[in-house]
């Protein structure tokens, strides 16, 4: 009964963590997972969210065993 939360790039550096395990609580959105994981009220503007390596929204619901990731706008290529 857990979820994995990952942070990348600037977010990873600013939060000082790249991955954290949280107990699973039914009915949470990614936005609420962010709050629980970081103890920050709001997602920084333009933060991108993925669930199980697919893009998702702040309102997407998180299921048990999900991998939730937060990262800044991408800058590859």
């Amino acid at each position, binding site marked *: 009964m857990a979820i994995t939360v990952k942070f*990348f790039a*600037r977010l990873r550096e600013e939060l000082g963590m790249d991955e954290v395990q949280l107990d699973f609580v039914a009915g949470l959105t990614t936005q609420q997972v962010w709050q629980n994981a970081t103890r920050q009220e709001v997602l920084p503007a333009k933060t991108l969210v993925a669930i199980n390596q697919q893009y998702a929204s702040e309102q997407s619901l998180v299921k048990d065993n999900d991998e939730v990731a937060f*990262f800044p706008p*991408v*800058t*590859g*290529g």
Partner: protein
Amino acid sequence: MAVYLKNGLFDPFKEVQQHQQQLEANIGKGQYGASAVFIGSMRDFNEARNVSSMTLEYYPGMTESALEVICQEAKEKWPVLDTLVVHRVGDIQPNDSIVLVAVWSAHRGAAYDANRYIMEALKSRAPFWKKETTASGGHWVEKNTPA
């Protein structure tokens, strides 16, 4: 259709040639009339004035699958015979190749269009993040340049 992430220098022309040989082995010679190749490389100036090096962070698993989805979309939109994407990760020096996109098709229009589609989609959706190092320290690149 192939996607490779490389931690270390790669030779884009060698990659294209090798992939093309495989393609010819698979579908026969004389099938494609057009190959469009794009190579993005690291300049020594960008948001900061003098960039001495760069680190490319990525999301293992998601980055590869995002690139595969993008190439699949291109194949659905245009009559493309094959695609190749190679992208650097890790530490990069000025003038190193960062990204290679190659598209093979029967006619030039599809090759050009699909290649550019893949590059634009990669720039906006593939999880990569650049951190540049200058004399004054490191900083994350805030956003990609528009096309």
